[in-house]
C-alpha cells in the first residue's frame, strides 16, 4: 500500500520531537478525522530555518509526510519553505495512495502554520502566506480512564 520511502519515514521519522522556545510553532488537523500535525521551527535572524521538529497523531502516511516535510524545509529560508507544496512532499515520498493525499496537504498546512506563528511573533509579513486554518477539536476528558 505504501512506497518504500513512506515506510522508511514512518519507521525512522526524521526530526521528531519538540523545540523549546521555538521561533514558530503550528498545529493543524483535526482529531475527529484522525490526523494532527505540529511543527516547531527555529529560525535565525537571516530567516533561515536552522532546526525543525514535528509531532504527529495519525496514520502511517501522516507520520511520513510530516517527517518528509521537515526534511524539505530544514536549512531553507522562510520563502523557500513557503514554496514547499504538498505535491513536493508526495513526490519526495514516491507517491501516496489516493486516500492519503490529504496527509500531504496537512503537512503543507503545518509548515504554513509554523511560519504564520513566527511572522506573528516577530511582526513580520511573509509574502504569500495566508492565515492557516487551525482546526483542532479539544480532547474531552474521559472518566473511564
Amino acid at each position, binding site marked *: 500500500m505504501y512506497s518504500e520511502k513512506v515506510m522508511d519515514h514512518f519507521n*525512522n521519522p526524521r526530526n521528531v520531537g519538540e523545540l523549546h522556545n521555538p521561533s514558530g510553532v503550528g498545529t493543524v488537523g483535526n*482529531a475527529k478525522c484522525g490526523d494532527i500535525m505540529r511543527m516547531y521551527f527555529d529560525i535565525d535572524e537571516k530567516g533561515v530555518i536552522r532546526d525543525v521538529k514535528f509531532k504527529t497523531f495519525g496514520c502511517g502516511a501522516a507520520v511520513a509526510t510530516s517527517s518528509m516535510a521537515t526534511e524539505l524545509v530544514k536549512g531553507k529560508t522562510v520563502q523557500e519553505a513557503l514554496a514547499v507544496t504538498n505535491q513536493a512532499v508526495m513526490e519526495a515520498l514516491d507517491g501516496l495512495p489516493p486516500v492519503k493525499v490529504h496527509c500531504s496537504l496537512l503537512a503543507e498546512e503545518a509548515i504554513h502554520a509554523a511560519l504564520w506563528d513566527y511572522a506573528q511573533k516577530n511582526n513580520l509579513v511573509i509574502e504569500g502566506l495566508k492565515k492557516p486554518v487551525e482546526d483542532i477539536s479539544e480532547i474531552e476528558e474521559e472518566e473511564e480512564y
Partner: protein
Amino acid sequence: MDTLIYLDNAATTKVKGEVLEAMLPYFTENYGNPSAIYTFAGQGKKAVDLARKQAAELIGAKPEEIYFTAGGSESDNWALKAAAEAYKEKGKHIITSKIEHHAILHTCGYLEKQGFEITYLNVDSQGKVSLEELREAIRPDTILISVMMANNEIGTLQDVAEIGKIAREAGVLFHTDAVQACGHIPVDVEEMNVDMLSASGHKFYGPKGVGVLYIKKGVKIRSFIHGGAQERNRRAGTLNVPGIVGFGKAAELAGESMVRDMEKVTALREHLIQRVLSEIPYSRLNGHKTDRLPGNASFCFRFIEGESMLILLDQLGVCASSGSACTSGALDPSHVLLALGLPHEIAHGSLRLTLSEDTKMEEIDFVVDELKKIIGRLRDMSPLYEDFVKKAGRPNFCDRLEEYYVQ
C-alpha cells in the same frame, strides 16, 4: 518476520485440516452436480444432506430449515430484503441496531430508499441494546427486528433470547446476524425464538464463500437468487458442494469442542485484557466485560491512531485490526465505537485482537510486550499526548525516545 501471530480471527479463520480433508474429494472425485439424476451425482447429494444436518445441529434447527448461501452478507441481504418484500402489506417498519455489520446497515439503507422506515436502536456504553427501547420501538406496522447475536468489532453479546421473546410476543419476525457467534458460543434457534439466522463458514474454521440462512418453518419469505430449483426453490445456483461439505464439517467440529474451546480461549482473552489494562496506561476495553465473544479483545489506546499501530505490529508478524478511519478509507472511525459514545479521537486509537483456539499464551505475551513499546513510541510523537502531559503535569512514562528512533 519469522513467525506469524494471527490475531484477526474475527476477519477470517484458518480452515481446519479435517475440514479441508472432508472437502477435497468433492473437487476432483465426486464433482457431479447434486441436482443430476445419475448415480455419480449421488455422492455429492448425500454429502450436502449430511452437511445440512450438521449445520442444523449446531444451531438447534431442523435440516429442512437450513439454506446454504454464498456467505454471511448474502444471508443478511436475503433475510432483510425478502422479509421486507413478503411483509410490506402488513407494514414498512423495521427495527435494527446502530452497531450491526454493514451487510445489515447498508441493506437497511437500501430498504429506506425503497420506502421502508428503519429504527436504529442505540446501545449502551458496553454495546448492549436496551430491551426497553426495543419494546417501545415496536409499532403496529413493524414487520422485522434484526439484531446481531455478537458484534464483530467489540464482541458484545446481545440478549438474543430476550429479544426473540419480545419479538414473538409482538408478533414480529426476528432475524439475527450470528456470523460471529456461530461455532463459538451455543446457539439454539428454538430457545432463542429466532425466525431467521445468518451464519458464515469461514468464521469458524470452515471455508470462505459459504454461509447459511436459517429460515424457520412457516416463515414466508421468498427466493432472493432466482434461477434453478435448488434449496427447495428458495436459493438458485448449483450447490457449492465442497464449500457446503466444509461448512458442515466445521459445524460438527465446533459443536464437539465448543465447551472446551470456549473455556480455553476465554482464559487466554482474559489474560490478554488483564495485562493490557494493567500495563498500558490510558487504555480501555471496548465492549461488555463478561458478555462477550470468547476470542474478542477490543481496546482503545488514547493519544494514538490505529493504523500506525497496525503497521508496527505487522512488521513484527502480528495480524490485527482497527476501527480507525484510516484503515477503512473513510473519514470517520468505526460506527460501532462511536455508538458506544466514544469521542472520535479515542475511537481512532482502537485495536482489535481476536483469538482462535490455536492461539498460544506466549503469543499473547509477546504481543502485549511489543504493544507496550509501540504505544510508547507513538505517544512520544503524538501532539495530543504532549498536550496532555503538559496540561496534567504527569511524568512522561514513555520517555525513551532514543530507544525507538535512530536519527
